[in-house]
């Protein structure tokens, strides 16, 4: 079995506690080197590493977007804090953190505070089920894809709760738009995923990646990819589908009334979801951490090669989202819903039919053969 993140943190916790035990006097050392305690600490370490890595990546994603967007717009983006503005977002986060947290007088306290928190938490939880490389998680979750999508689709509820409880007309309009949009695009996303699942024969993300050994799914399942990416844009509420927070008409949409750290929660959770969207595209369609077999082995055998290639692909997918943001205007609510219900769903059904045909045909001239069903 390959080294997993959990085993790494178990080793780390064990070394830490045993080291402590060797220094401490007799009765204490026995309690500290207890295997249960080691496991508990290992799980905590696991969570801390995961949280830290995902947060740093999210913040770097914001930096990446700012720089890339700057280049698209003929300017340089953040430049002053840290090298090439690398620390700008940390500075911004610190500033928001230091701000006074307030609540509008008429806002509902429970919803106002719990909305952003739940939105943030449900977004971060997703990182626990997404494998980043073959040594990340050892496939204990046979339905990890389903779980990821299920948690992903909690968002409209929390957005609507926080929008409604802010007691602001713009927030309410934004929240309703957001709920309608996310629910409308949930369906085509799931159907597009079904196409992938049909070909891969599993809901386990590890298996789905393993099934892409011969060819990545984006080629034969290009219709599903298009539907999935467009649906993800809507789920992330990015341009051209960012109308829940269309600043020109709704000020800031459903987070109009939020400031300080609660606003930072929304902002960060948005980018966490953007990161997760990019990761899902990579996992489902771009072969995850694998490279095509004709690539020289030197490129895939260096330490942490899987994570490196995975990150590269993720950031490239995100660059596509940034490019879309730089180039397109936003659509209108009714147009968005019409696209969702009348274009996306038929397209995703078509994708399912194509996937089924692919499984029947088994081999495609350019791409090669599908592995046996159920991997």
């Amino acid at each position, binding site marked *: 079995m390959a080294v997993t993140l959990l085993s790494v943190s178990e080793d780390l916790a064990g070394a830490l506690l045993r080291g402590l035990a060797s220094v401490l006097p007799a009765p204490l050392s026995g309690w500290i080197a207890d295997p249960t305690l080691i496991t508990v600490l290992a799980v905590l370490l696991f969570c801390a590493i995961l949280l830290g890595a995902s947060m740093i990546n999210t913040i770097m994603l914001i930096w990446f977007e700012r720089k890339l967007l700057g280049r698209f717009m003929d300017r340089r983006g953040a430049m002053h804090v840290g090298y090439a503005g690398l620390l700008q977002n940390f500075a911004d986060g610190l500033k928001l953190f230091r701000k006074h947290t307030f609540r509008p007088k008429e806002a509902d306290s429970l919803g106002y505070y719990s909305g952003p928190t739940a939105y943030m938490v449900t977004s971060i939880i997703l990182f626990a089920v997404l494998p980043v490389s073959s040594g990340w998680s050892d496939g204990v979750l046979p339905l990890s894809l389903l779980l990821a999508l299920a948690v992903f689709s909690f968002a409209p509820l929390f957005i609507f709760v926080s929008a409604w409880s802010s007691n602001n007309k713009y927030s309410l309009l934004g929240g309703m738009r957001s709920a309608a949009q996310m629910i409308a695009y949930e369906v085509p996303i799931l159907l597009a995923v079904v196409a992938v699942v049909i070909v891969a024969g599993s809901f386990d993300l590890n298996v789905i990646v393993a099934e892409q050994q011969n060819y990545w799914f984006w080629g034969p399942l290009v219709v599903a990819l298009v539907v999935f990416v467009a649906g993800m844009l809507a789920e992330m509420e990015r341009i051209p589908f960012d109308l829940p927070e*269309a600043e020109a*008409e709704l000020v800031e949409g459903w987070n109009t009334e939020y400031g300080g750290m609660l606003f930072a929660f929304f902002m960060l959770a948005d980018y966490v979801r953007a990161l997760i969207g990019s990761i899902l595209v990579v996992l489902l369609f771009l072969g995850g951490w694998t490279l095509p077999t004709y690539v020289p082995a030197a490129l895939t055998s260096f330490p942490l090669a899987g994570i490196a290639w995975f990150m590269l692909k993720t950031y490239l997918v995100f660059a596509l989202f940034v490019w879309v943001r730089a180039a397109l*205007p936003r659509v209108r609510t009714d147009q968005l819903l019409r696209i969702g219900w009348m274009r996306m769903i038929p397209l995703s059904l078509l994708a399912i039919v194509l996937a089924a045909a692919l499984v029947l045909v088994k081999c495609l001239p350019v791409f090669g053969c599908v592995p046996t069903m159920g991997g």
Partner: protein
Amino acid sequence: MSEMWVNMGPQHPMTHGLWNLRVRIDGEIIVDVDPEMGYLHRGIEKISEDRHYNEVITLMDRTCYVAGMAWEHLYIIAAEDALHIEVPARAQWIRTLTDELQRIASHIMWYAAFVQDLGLMSPFLYGMRDRDLVLDLFQSFTGGRLTYEYNRAGGVRNDLPNGFTDQTRKVMDWLMERFREYDALCLGSEIFRRRCDGIGVLKANDAIPLGVTGPMLRAAGVRRDLRKDRPYAAYDQVEFDVALADAADVTARYLVRMEELRQSVRIVRQTLDWLDKNPGPVLADHLPRWLGAPYAPVGREGYLLKRNYPQGVGFSSVEEPHGEAQAYVVNTGGEHPYRVKFRSPVFANLGAAKQYMIGYRVADIPPIMGSVDICVGEVDR
């Protein structure tokens, strides 16, 4: 959901200034609108009565802060009319040039703000970048980038610097290429067409009684352009076409303004050629001393002249970037104008909001209001 009033403004990203659009919405549908202006009223007309004729120009720059030169021109024609001052030909051509440069700057600014409202972020910055070049040109001969104080009763303050015409030609060439990019980013985008086609329709029959002018009127197919219909400065000597469209919607207004940009470049090139060939004075001789620079010492003969100076009224109408602006100046023989009155085109264009907004959606408000090209400074004055 029941109907509710939403205040879009006075602090709202859509307003582009300080005004309030009250919207009554049923879900996402606009049932009623009520534009409220007056938040930016500075009493420019009243202040003008306490100022020397040339000092009013300072206020004109601040009337519409994106089209200062056009408003200077508007006022100065009326003032010269009231004061019976003849303007040398070169000054007239320079005013034509500055008017058109200002139209380019203003229309690019409009483009940037309009696409920003639609969520297009890159063209916004492209627009601001290209407008900067025009502002640089202004800076090279007026010293100001937004408030110029360049016109004077009897001409303009100073002649153009050496090399200005060549530099301007280069900028015009650059801009003509950029306009193509602008079109590609907007008209080439399916989403843009879906957002703008058939939105905010204001037909000629509704527009004319409400006093709507400028690109909004021309987008409804009405061939009305003061530069052609009632030429001032040197507009009767330059060749250009009146930009027209007939769909009367947001896209039509976009098309009209983009065509006006190209026509403005055409006019600018002609004026540059003329200015290269015809040197001469830019300020009239024998001006009364009391008209001179603000706070300049007023000589004895100045007061004598003033006392004997003929009275009169002056009227002017100018095709400002936003529409038809008009000015009325009454000279009763004092060193200050007795009364100054302006007509703002945007005030009338905004006042017609009920005609072109009811029935559309909340999401249509930014493109519709963007296509009006609001400048609240001149609405409230």
